[in-house]
């Protein structure tokens, strides 16, 4: 009796607020925001369809289900992550719906057949993404188990990365080979490879970090590693270059290499790796500029977009016009011309949002990404195992770097490379992969925030089943 009394006392002392109700409230807020956006689009473009309400209610139900799973399986999880990505996803749906309306209007004017709205497909992908999100939370009860799959993840990740090169299933879209198509379904395996490779990097580096941290020589006060430890970095560099050369996918190449450098730095604590990595990146970029026409065009367009505004510079110039048209407060939902920008639903969705929601709206969206990064980093810091530290910061970095590469590209901050904007862009692979990514972050945050005692109980049960 007295023993159980102590346990209760201990439990009470360690009990932390789960904040699940806050998550639910935020999630409802996100959904209401999405519904408002959708209604404003309908009002401005004078479209109303029953499909719209089915989509909205469907998305609300699946988000509610996801919240239920979080509540049951990861009660201590970070309460901000799910509502944050849901907000992005719902805003993305509204903008895709808005661009569908523009396509329909054009078809009507030209007397051609009105295409099936893409937003229905995106809602379907959101459904699949959230089902997998729930699946990951249920199936992976402890993120540390993923460490067992370090090399499996690495091999599968690399295979996925190069799958689009396989004849028969590989698909070339706009000059880049990042798609596979099986039985009518197209998928961008690079998005999943991003997660698998992050698991691989975290698992690999957690065991090798001490060796890689060894200092061989010092230069300008910075310790440099031994040459024989350069192996993994060089392999990754070559891998990234191969993606660039064979798939012409600048964005994924940059992203994968970026995640690796970040994790190498976090694992070893050596800034020298960042310096060496950056030098390799600059060298690789210079070589790619010299050797490949498409890289050269991208770079030249970045420097001089107005040199050929109707040709090579068309995309970026139209994107900039969109941002300019939006100004401070935006034109309002459905009242701009985002359809003038090519690929407005995918790569250039930020430009569409910038035009209609203005600087104020787009800044709010970018702050949501900042919040996700901050929350992911918080989980990375607070989790109690090195693998968890690395995995969480790796996944967070993946999201942050990808956002920077694509948004920086469409705003002419950096040269344009093809990548989707996480949770906003149209595209199933990206949405599904990013929901899996967030599920893993939520799982780690649960471990980070749960009371010590429960973790120990879990560990004991694992050791003695």
């Amino acid at each position, binding site marked *: 009796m007295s023993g159980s009394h102590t346990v209760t006392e201990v439990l009470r002392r360690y009990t932390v607020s789960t904040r699940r109700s806050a998550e639910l409230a935020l999630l409802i807020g996100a959904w209401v925001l999405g519904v408002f956006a959708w209604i404003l689009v309908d009002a401005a473009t004078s479209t109303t369809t029953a499909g719209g309400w089915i989509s909205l209610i469907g998305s609300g139900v699946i988000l509610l289900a996801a919240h239920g799973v979080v509540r049951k399986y990861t009660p201590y999880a970070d309460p901000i992550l799910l509502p944050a990505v849901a907000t992005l996803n719902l805003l993305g749906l509204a903008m895709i719906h808005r661009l569908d309306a523009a396509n329909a209007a054009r078809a009507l*004017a030209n007397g051609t057949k009105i295409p099936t709205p893409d937003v229905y497909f995106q809602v379907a992908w959101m459904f699949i993404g959230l089902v997998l999100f729930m699946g990951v939370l249920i199936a992976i009860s402890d993120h540390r188990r993923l460490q067992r799959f370090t090399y499996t993840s690495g091999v599968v990740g690399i295979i996925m990365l190069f799958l689009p090169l396989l004849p028969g299933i590989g698909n070339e879209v706009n000059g880049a080979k990042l798609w596979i198509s099986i039985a009518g379904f197209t998928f961008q395996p690079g998005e999943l490879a991003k997660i698998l490779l992050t698991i691989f990097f975290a698992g690999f580096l957690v065991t090798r970090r001490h060796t890689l941290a060894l200092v061989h020589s010092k230069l300008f006060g910075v310790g440099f590693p031994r040459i024989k430890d350069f192996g993994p970095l060089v392999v990754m560099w070559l891998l990234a270059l191969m993606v660039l050369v064979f798939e012409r996918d600048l964005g994924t190449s940059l992203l994968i290499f970026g995640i690796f450098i970040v994790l190498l730095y*976090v694992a070893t604590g050596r800034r020298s790796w960042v310096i060496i990595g950056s030098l390799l990146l600059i060298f690789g970029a210079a070589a790619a500029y010299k050797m490949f026409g498409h890289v050269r065009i991208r770079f030249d367009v970045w420097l001089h977009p107005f040199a050929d505004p*109707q040709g090579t510079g068309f995309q970026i110039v139209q994107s900039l016009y969109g941002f300019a048209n939006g100004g401070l407060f935006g034109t309002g939902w459905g009242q701009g011309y985002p359809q003038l920008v090519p690929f407005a639903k995918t790569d250039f969705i930020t430009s569409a949002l910038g035009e209609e929601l203005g600087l104020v709206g787009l800044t709010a969206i970018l702050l949501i990404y900042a919040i996700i990064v901050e929350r992911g*980093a918080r989980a*990375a810091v607070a989790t109690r195992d090195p693998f968890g530290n690395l995995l969480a910061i790796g996944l967070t970095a993946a999201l942050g770097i990808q*956002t920077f590469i694509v948004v920086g590209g469409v705003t*002419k901050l950096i040269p344009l490379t093809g990548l989707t904007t996480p949770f906003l862009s149209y595209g199933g692979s990206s949405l599904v992969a990013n929901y899996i990514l967030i599920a893993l972050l939520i799982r780690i945050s649960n471990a980070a925030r749960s009371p010590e005692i429960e973790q120990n109980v879990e560990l004991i049960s694992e050791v003695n089943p």
Partner: protein
Amino acid sequence: MIRQINRVTAGLIFLLVALIVNISYIQVFQAKSLRSQGNNQRVLLAEYTRQRGPILIGSQSLAESISTTDSLTYLRKYTVGSDFAAVTGFYSLVYGATGIEAKENDVLAGNDSRFFVDRLQQLIASRKPKGGAVRLTLNSAAQVAAMNGLAGRTGAVVAINASTGEILALASSPSFDPNLLSSHDPATIKKTYDALTADPQEPMLNRPLALTLPPGSTFKLVTAAAALESGKYTMNSVIPAPASIPLPGSDKTLGNWNHKSCGPGDKTTLKHALAISCNTAFALLGIKLGEQALYDQAKKFGFESSFTTPLISATSHFPTGLDQAQTAMSAIGQFDVRATTLQMALVAAGIANDGVVMKPYMVSQIMAPNLTVLQNAVPQALGRVMTTENAQSLQKMMIEVVTNGTGSNGRISGVVVGGKTGTAENKPGESAHAWFVAFAQTANGPIAVAVMLQHGGGATEVSGNGLAAPIANAVMRAAMKQ
């Protein structure tokens, strides 16, 4: 590891902040220059979805935007076709805007800062924003009379209310139909535009404002004004007027059109010299007065400056650095003297308005989208060009031209009309330009008109009285009716 994670996080946040700083720069500081890029379709598209304000004369609309079902929403319609094209210009999806459509675009498109309160009301009432209206000074009957008179010929007409500077008619022939250039079909627009630019008759040239030609004998008005203003001459002063004179410093001679002297004893009065358009008398007068006096007088009338009506006129010139022969030729409106039709109308207007030239303008009112008047034009004087007495003398001399001289076709029964004919010589082989400038004294003040027929408008026998005066006559009669 924790420290490194924190640093990486700071790095990622830095990247996102860099994005925010960059979009702030684009959407706030760069936005204006990006919006003004020539190939930025958004600006035009946004204008098309807003109902553009009408261009009015009186209560008649020359141009208005009507609602359509296509994606550009509003179509610009020019109700009177080609008659007012030189004034309204066109509003094209492909080639931008010209004429009043361009000069008053901020008002018509509803971007004018004076509409701020109006826009706010529209925003609150969530009404679709509309453009403001522009009312012109033009007189519909006078403009139609000018276009009818010019029909089938190449030329220009300008009519001005001399006491205010209001432009009553601004006609250019041949003209074009702005409706075709303002359509919503880029292919039609391009085809029309290409055909118009390829036409040797240059239908899109704004002849009354953009074309400067030698004014010929109509310039004798300026020379006569300079003579009166010198204080050495009155209209009854007797001046030498032989059948021909040798041009100093050359072996050429200058003669009168009928090869006769202009009066007994090779002498005549200034008044008679103008009435019969005596070349030798004005050439010798020009040499006497000197280049500087002629230049100064021309400049007072508006030569050497450009007018913003708001359509911008070309600058009329009186040459400088002349020898005596060139001064003689310039005094009769030949050599390198060049004037727009507007400028010659201003010469007549200045004389008719007792020596004060009024600034020419054609926008009388700017109205907000709800048609409340935001601005009424105020007549402004350009300056005094001659004394009232001298101006009245010159008026009498011009009346003499019509009643007893070369400008008989300017006569209107019951109305005092003064005028001056002109036939401007061209290069050998090219037919001359026919001119007629005139004023009519009406109950509402004097009306001044200038008619220019390029190469005689295509006629074989070129005479200002025969070709140009009847058009001026019709325009003045039309203008007086209202």
